[in-house]
């Protein structure tokens, strides 16, 4: 039984979920013939030498339903040996998986949740002062000797 793989090169971080924009297919549909047991998580493929594959680092193996990080080497017979390790992040559709996110870069800015990793300078704060004033402040507080602003409280007199 013949199987095919797509040999590609990716520049994406290994932890990236969707690597399609960072991945270039070198050649699709490369035939392989399993000569022994293929491990689903760490398969090894042997193919004919092709210099274009020397920079390959990513493999699509549809028959295994997964994507793999690949390391290419050449054996003594001149064949290319591709050692793979499953890319479990990108191999499965996780789009609808529920998730509780505790850190996220897409937010773009701090949230209401305290972030103890944010580099806040300790023991220093910027003073932002705003004056609150009354529109008639000059009328309210005035220092004019003509103002009737002395209150004299005395004994007796004509109380009211």
């Amino acid at each position, binding site marked *: 039984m013949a199987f095919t793989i797509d040999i590609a090169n990716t520049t994406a971080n290994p932890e990236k979920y969707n690597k399609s924009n960072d991945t270039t297919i070198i050649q699709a549909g490369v035939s392989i013939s399993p000569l022994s047991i293929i491990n689903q998580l760490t398969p090894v493929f042997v193919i004919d030498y092709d210099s274009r594959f020397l920079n390959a680092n990513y493999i699509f193996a549809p028959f295994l339903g997964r994507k793999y990080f690949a390391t290419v080497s050449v054996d003594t017979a001149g064949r290319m040996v591709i050692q793979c390790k499953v890319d479990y992040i990108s191999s499965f559709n996780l789009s609808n998986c*529920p998730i509780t*996110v505790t*850190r996220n870069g897409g*937010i773009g800015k701090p949230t209401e949740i305290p972030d103890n990793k*944010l580099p806040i300078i300790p023991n220093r704060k910027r003073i*932002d002062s705003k004056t*609150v004033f009354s529109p008639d402040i000059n009328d309210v507080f005035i220092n004019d000797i003509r103002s009737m602003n002395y209150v004299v409280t005395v004994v007796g007199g004509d109380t009211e």
Partner: protein
Amino acid sequence: MIPNTQYYGDSTTWLNATTKPYAVDNAANKIPSYRDINGGITADKLTVNTPLDNSICYAGIAADSPIAQLYCINGADYENPLFDFNGDINFIWGYVNTTDQLTTTRQINLNDLSDTNETDRYYLIPQSQSEYPVGNVHACFTPLVSIIPYNFVLLIYIECDTPQFNDRRAVALDDYIQNLYGISPETHPNITSILVAPFGGNTLTGERSVMAINDNGGMALAYNVPYDLPQLQGIYDYWANAGNVKTTVRIWGAPKLIYYNNYYQYVKGKGGTFNTANGILTYYKEYGNGEWILRCVASLGLFFAIKRTAAASGALDSEYMYCGTIDQNGLCHGDYTSGTDNRDQPQYSWTTTNDSTYEPTVIIPDYDDTNHFNPYISTADFNAVYVTNYDNVRKLANELYKAIARKPTDVQMVDYSAETFLVTDPLNGIISIRKYPVNNVPNHGITGYIKIGNYTSDTVQAARYAPSNNHFITFTFSGTKSLNDEFDGSFLDREPYTTAELYIPFCGTIPISVAEYTGHTINVKMAIDYRSGSCTAYVCKDNTPLQSANGQIGIDIGVSGINTATVDGQLLNANLSLKQAQRQQFQASTSFFTTPASIATQIFGGGKFGISGAAGSLGQLTSMGNTFENSWDKRQAASYELHHIQTPYKSISAGSPLCAAMGEHCCRLTIYRPIISNDYNAEIYAKTVGFACLKNGVVSDFSGLTRGAIDLNGVNCTDQEKSMIVKAFADGVYL
């Protein structure tokens, strides 16, 4: 351009502006109903501070929202506010088919963004529209009581003329600014133009951004040069239609003026002919970040966009998509979110218009206009309280010291009858004198001679203190919000990272809860007790007092009052001591000068005692001499004490109110904000660390570096792979 069906639903469900809205209410989905305006129909009206219903359209207009502050011109009274705070109709959502009235007016259909010739449009219509009866050109206005925002994103349009002033049409805000002024929104994001609302004649143009105004030759200005004309606020004549009917416009804010001379081209679009000799004056105003217009639209609680592309194909959390926020009372204050922050709004996740859990019958007062303060509570006076000024206090001091000078020196001669109560020592009748750093202490305004006890001043007049309601000093914050978020409402804007304190004159500095006051206005009302000199400052969140602080505002004047009772007692005792000493001295001297003769008799008369008797007599003489000297000394001491009695002053003085009076007389809000290291780079931080959050959703809801706990139930992979995936998400995955 592909309509954004992903977010707005299938286009067949969109509210189609090309046909009239659904004629029948659909209770399940709150399908818009409409009613033709018929002589001022009162149904389906919105009122300030009152949510409409419990659908997504429940959003009510809060009284402090910008749109509630608008004034409209209703053709009859140019001062009527757009919203009637008495609870009447304020605004309605209107649907208009402009074909019936302005043939050259072009509107944009939200469903077909390439079509600029559509004639249907939705308006936010002031209440005044209802004044027009069915049958005239305004009958086509149709109020909507609710809209389906899930399928309906407002796009901010402004009605204006093209740069050539040869046509009238609605264009997107950005297009308008760029076309008319040649200003790119990318480089000048702060310009909006809505500022003039023309209305009059037999044309109804809605709110328009730019309006021609007949200069009448009064303002000679350079061509196309912005000119600040803050004094132009008001109402101006302009020529509105083909009939040369003069009507009016109103200008808000501080517009800038640009002079154009293509007046004719402008009016050509209406088919009219005007006197081209006069120029056109076009006003515009630059608002920070278009804040005013954004807040107006946000007051509706809907999604809206300022870019046509965002409205058409942008996600609800895309950059130029905005969402008016709704508080827990279902009211909109003009606040909004944009971009990914829209996800935090309840509207974001609602899939039907009835998803809101808001229950309109339970309204938590937030904007509190209740009067929490009471008028002055009158109390009876046991003493007399006068209000006077600086000069009269000085006169009073002089007069009272003269009264003391008339006091008889020999206290035993004084008649202590009731009639003389405080007459000879009126200074002792002063309880307090305080100066208040206010312009006028409430008083009756009628002056008379001050009476202290039974003493009546000869010269000093004062008014009686008059308790009134004028016992509050209100400090009003000048801006709209006293405490704003500077870090987008993040934890950095909350305590303990951001703290605030409020200095209140005479009361000191009190801490202010940042979370409590952020987004609100702080006002301070200071109540003054003119009897005791104390004051209490009430710190209000908007109008609701939340905190108070006490202080002393009355500055005590040191009264050098003699405690006459003490003086009298000391004088009396000293006199008595002196007299006693005088008597003792007299007795001693008499004894001293008469006794020596008998002693001599004893010595030289050869008495039976002999020498020894003589010796005893000498000792007695010496003793009498000492007694005499002692009595002399006592008299001298009593005399000294009498003449050195210290006048006991009572000192009433507290420096703190005086010090406070010399300090700042306004309330000062000081905010202490955290400082982030200069080395911080948000973009890199986002890619490498990620921002702390606590969000729930599905993987596709997130982008960028994401860390969290994932549920892989249903994913077809090995358990080993699942463990690895879980661990990978715990460590961080780039989505």
